[in-house]
C-alpha cells in the first residue's frame, strides 16, 4: 500500500508540475483571421495610344544600351510611347517609365494622348452622282452649253492630215468658261493653185459666257456668247492672227437629240513679204465677208453613243494672192460619233472635210479624239466650304 501511495504521490506531483508548466505558458489565443494584405497601389494606365512589345525587349533607364536595364518587356505587353529620339522610344508601362528600342514595339510614334477621346465627327452625307456634262463643242463649232463651275475639260485629237488638236477648258461659276487650245483648222497656201496646208500649232484662247437652258423661261435654249483669239503666228516669213466672236443657241429635242445654231463674226490678218490683208479692212472686205452662220446636230440613237454633224468656218490665207483672195473663210463639214466609254471619258472619231465647197475628196481627213471631263476640282472646292 505504501508503494501505491508513493506512486500516487509521485503521479500527483508530476501532474501538479505539469500543470504549473502549462500555467506559465501563455495560453494560445484563438487565431483571428489576418487582415488581407493591402496590395501596392497600381499606377493607372497612362492615357493615349497603346503599343505592344513585339519581342521580349529590355527597358533601359536612358536611350542607350549602356544604361541600366529596369526590366524586360514580355511579348505583347502594352506600352504607351510618348517620345521618340532616334531609334529609341520613351515609354510608360504599367511598371514605370523607361526607354526601349523602337523596333521592339509596334505603333511607336507618340500621338495626341487625347486623340482617342475626341468625339467622332458626324458622317458626311453621301455625294450625289455627278450629272453628265453637256459638251461645249460639237466638232469645230461651239454649243450653247457651258461647263459647270470648276469642271475641267480636256480634248485631244489627231487626224490623217497630220493635224493635232488640243483643247483645255474650265467652267467658271456656271455662267462662263475659259480655255486654251491648239487647232489645225487655219490653213495657208503659197498661191491660188497650191494645195492648202494647215498652220500648226495655232494657239488660241477662248472665253465664253452665257445662260443655261430653261434658265430664263421654259423652252429657252442655252445661249452662249464666245470670243476666241489667237497669238500671232509666224510661218514662212508671214505673220497671221485670227479672232472669232460667236453667238450660239443650243436646245435639247427630247432626251436623245439636240440642235445647235449660231452665227460667227470672223477677223483675220495676214502680214508678210508681199502680203498685207485683214478682214476688218473694209477697203477690201465687206462686213458680210466676216459674218457666217454655223450649226450642228447631235443624235443619240443608242445609249452612250451620239452621232454629231456640224458645219463651221475657218480662215485660209493665200500668200501670193491679191485683193480679197488673200484671206477667205472656208466651210468645214464634220461628222462622226462620240462614244461615252465612261462618265468621265469619251472616244470620238469621224470625218472632217476642210473645204466642203471645193468638194475635193482628197481633202477629207479621218480624225480620232479623246475627251476627258472631271469634277475633281469642283468637289475639292465644295469640300473647302
Amino acid at each position, binding site marked *: 500500500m505504501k508503494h501505491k501511495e508513493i506512486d500516487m504521490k509521485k503521479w500527483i506531483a508530476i501532474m501538479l508540475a505539469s500543470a504549473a508548466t502549462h500555467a506559465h505558458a501563455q495560453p494560445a489565443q484563438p487565431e483571428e483571421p489576418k487582415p488581407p494584405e493591402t496590395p501596392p497601389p497600381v499606377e493607372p494606365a497612362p492615357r493615349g495610344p497603346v503599343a505592344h512589345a513585339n519581342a521580349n525587349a529590355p527597358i533601359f533607364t536612358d536611350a542607350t544600351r549602356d544604361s541600366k536595364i529596369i526590366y524586360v518587356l514580355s511579348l505583347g505587353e502594352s506600352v504607351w510611347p510618348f517620345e521618340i529620339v532616334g531609334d529609341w522610344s520613351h515609354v510608360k508601362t504599367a511598371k514605370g517609365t523607361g526607354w526601349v528600342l523602337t523596333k521592339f514595339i509596334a505603333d511607336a510614334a507618340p500621338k495626341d494622348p487625347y486623340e482617342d477621346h475626341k468625339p467622332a465627327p458626324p458622317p458626311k452625307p453621301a455625294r450625289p452622282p455627278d450629272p453628265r456634262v453637256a459638251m461645249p463643242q460639237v466638232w469645230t463649232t461651239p454649243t450653247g452649253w457651258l461647263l459647270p463651275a470648276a469642271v475641267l475639260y480636256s480634248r485631244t485629237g489627231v487626224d*490623217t*492630215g*497630220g493635224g493635232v488638236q488640243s483643247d483645255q477648258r474650265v467652267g467658271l461659276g456656271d455662267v462662263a468658261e475659259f480655255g486654251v487650245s491648239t487647232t489645225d483648222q487655219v490653213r495657208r497656201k503659197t498661191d491660188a493653185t497650191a*494645195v492648202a496646208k494647215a498652220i500648226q500649232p495655232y494657239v488660241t484662247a477662248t472665253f465664253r459666257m452665257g445662260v443655261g437652258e430653261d434658265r430664263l423661261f421654259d423652252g429657252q435654249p442655252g445661249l452662249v456668247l464666245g470670243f476666241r483669239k489667237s497669238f500671232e503666228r509666224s510661218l514662212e516669213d508671214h505673220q497671221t492672227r485670227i479672232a472669232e466672236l460667236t453667238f450660239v443657241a443650243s436646245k435639247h429635242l427630247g432626251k436623245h437629240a439636240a440642235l445647235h445654231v449660231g452665227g460667227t463674226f470672223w477677223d483675220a490678218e495676214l502680214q508678210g513679204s508681199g502680203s498685207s490683208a485683214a478682214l476688218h479692212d473694209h477697203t477690201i472686205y465687206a462686213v458680210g465677208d466676216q459674218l457666217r452662220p454655223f450649226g450642228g446636230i447631235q443624235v443619240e*440613237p*443608242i445609249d*452612250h*453613243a451620239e*452621232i454629231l454633224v456640224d458645219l463651221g468656218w475657218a480662215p485660209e490665207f493665200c500668200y501670193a494672192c491679191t485683193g480679197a483672195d488673200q484671206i477667205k473663210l472656208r466651210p468645214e463639214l464634220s*461628222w*462622226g*460619233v462620240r*462614244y*461615252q*466609254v*465612261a*462618265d468621265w*471619258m469619251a*472616244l470620238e*472619231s*469621224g*470625218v472632217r472635210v476642210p473645204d466642203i465647197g471645193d468638194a*475635193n*475628196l*482628197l481633202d*477629207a*481627213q*479621218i480624225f*480620232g479624239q479623246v475627251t476627258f471631263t472631271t469634277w475633281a476640282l469642283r468637289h475639292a472646292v465644295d469640300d473647302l466650304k
Partner: protein
Amino acid sequence: MALASVAHARPVHDRVWLAPTAELPEEGGMIGSIALDRHGGFDLGAGYGFGGIAELEFALASSDARLCEPCSPLERSTATFRLGAREDDLFEGAPALVLGVEAGLDAHVSGLHATDAYVVATRHVAFVTLHAGVGASATGHDNGAATTLVRPLGGIEMIPPAFPKTTLLADVSWQPKFATAAGAMTTTTSELAFAWGVRYQTFPWLAVELAVRHDASAFGDPDVLVRVTGQWGTGTLR
C-alpha cells in the same frame, strides 16, 4: 478597263475580201486581221467599235494599191471611219447601211493620195449575204490634179447549209493605181479588182480565209492570199 473578252456574238466581218460590208463591230468590240499574199505582200488591220454604230479602223497594207509600170504592190497606211445602222434598225426588213471614208495616213510623206468614200448595204437572206454599194475613189499626187471615179461595189457570201462554218465569198472593188513614166508620176486612177475564196470560221472569234484576186490589168496572173481575222470585246469602263 475591263479585261478583254472573247466575243461570242455572231461573227462580224467588215470586209468580204476587199469590198467593205455594212457590218459593224459591237460596242467596244475589236476586229483584227493579218493577210499575206504569194508575192510577199501583207495586210494588217485593226478596227474598234464605237457604241455599235461606228468603227474606226487602221490598216497597213501592201496588197491593195499598185504602183505601175511595172506594177508592184504599194505599201500604204490608211484610216477608215464607218458610220451606220444595223439590219432592221431603221425599219423591219431594212438592210444594214454604212457610210465609210478611207483616207491615207502617209500621203503627206509619200505624196500619193487616195481617198475612198462609200455607202454599202448588207442584207442576210437565208444562207446568203448580199453586199451592194457605191463608192467614190479619189486619187492624186502632190503635183497633179485629182481623179475621182464613182463606181459600184459589192460582194456575196454563201454558207452552204451542210457546212455551217464554211463561207464561199466573192467581191468586186476598186483599188488605187498610180502610174509612173520616166520616174515621174503620170496618172492616178482606181482599178477593178475581183476576188473570190473561202472563209472557215474556226471559232466564233477566229476565221481563216483563202482567196484569189484578179486585177483588171493582170487578170490572167492572179494573186493568192490567206487571211486570219479575229474579234474580241474590250468591255467598258461603266
